């Protein structure tokens, strides 16, 4: 567990169309992936992403629906612009933008989420742990972020 990259996974609650995908995420997500379910990617405030980075996330995944498929019509459009700009901004201050991955899922994308997460994890393993902005990681065991 300690050696696997820590991933914060923001999942729009609608984007996993196949019930088996959602069940996998809900029940069998690997321990190093921390799930945060949101009603829409439009709910994702850059504050959440920063909070994850400061908490020690080596990578951040945001998965949502394709344009025109947003349950709330335009949430994902707003998210795309804001979070795109934010990941570019984080890169500017040193948090590699390769560490922020957007996955826009379609109806046909059964099983894609597992593949994406696995691939993302291998990519993160090649990068060093992202510790330079991880300023809220507790120094002792049994602290807040377990």
């Amino acid at each position: 567990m300690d050696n696997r990259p820590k991933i914060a996974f923001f999942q729009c609650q609608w984007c996993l169309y196949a019930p088996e995908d959602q069940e996998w995420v809900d029940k069998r997500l690997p321990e190093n992936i921390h799930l945060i379910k949101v009603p829409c990617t439009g709910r994702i405030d850059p504050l959440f992403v920063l909070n994850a980075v400061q908490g020690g996330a080596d990578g951040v995944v945001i998965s949502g629906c394709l344009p025109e498929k947003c349950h709330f019509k335009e949430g994902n459009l707003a998210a795309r612009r804001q979070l795109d700009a934010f990941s570019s901004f984080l890169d500017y201050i040193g948090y590699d933008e390769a560490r922020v991955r957007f996955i826009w899922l379609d109806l046909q994308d059964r099983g894609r989420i597992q593949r994406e997460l696995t691939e993302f994890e291998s990519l993160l393993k090649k990068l060093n742990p992202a510790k330079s902005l991880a300023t809220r990681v507790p120094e002792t065991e049994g602290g807040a972020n377990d």
Partner: protein
Amino acid sequence: MTELEQKIRAEAARLLSEGLVDVVMAFRKEDAPLRPQPAFFTCVEDLENLIYNGLCANNLANYLTRYPDETRIGMLVRGCENRSVNALVVEKQHSRQNLYLIGVPCTGIIDWRKVVALTGEDILGYEETDSSLHVRTKRQSYQLPRRELLHASCQRCVHPNPLSADIVLGEALPEGDPALIRERVEAFEALTRAERTAYFKQEAERCIRCYACREACPMCYCEECFVDHNSPRWTESGTTPAGTHAWHIIRAFHQTGRCTSCGACERACPMDIQMTYLTDKLGKDMWDSYQFAAGMDAKSQPPFASFTLDDRKHFQAGGMHS
């Protein structure tokens, strides 16, 4: 009194005596050396205190959000202030109709700290010309080239001329070179990630959470700032690294598509923290991605408010950073 000051006073007097405005926002004589103050004139007699010079360091558009729309306001605007007014009008924070903008093309704001660094304390007085600042201290007199005293943002100013003033006093100035802002951002981008993080931390960690940058900024007008959210608390409250980093990252980010690069934030900061290298990066991204620059008119919606289905071509898995 300079000719320009006379013109400004005359225009302010006209607006007040003809009952065209309820208040004129400009600057008045300093109490502390080198520090003229924002001032709010409501009667003609007070106008003898109105001054205008290169030490007038605050963005007056900041005060607009304190007034209800019905108040008829005459205000001095330089290039950046005019754009801040536009940006506020776009965000419906004030309507243009009750504003009378007294435009003044600006040769740049002098950074008082640069003056003190060169002359020391004990400043008795100063005179400003087009090209220099003459400073008298208890010990001696100095003649300093104005260009070297300008605040950094003013050295990179692209739009010194007010874009949409109701009257313009003073000669129009040549527009500045946008490459200056862009090049500084690109120079920072060219550093390694480790260097960029180190610089960011070195600056942000001096922060004392006084929020002067926020209060001096015309675009920071939220009644409840994100730092005051406590259920849950997303950013640490104190001067820990987590807290100071989060403050600077998010405040800059909340300026995306809104910041006019006026530099009021840096001028207000008591700890000399650099911030415009962050907001200018976001401004550059907004230009590159959406051809948007804040405050250029009073109508165009900023990028985060104008997402469209046409953005769909960017919705590729992991492929947004084209």
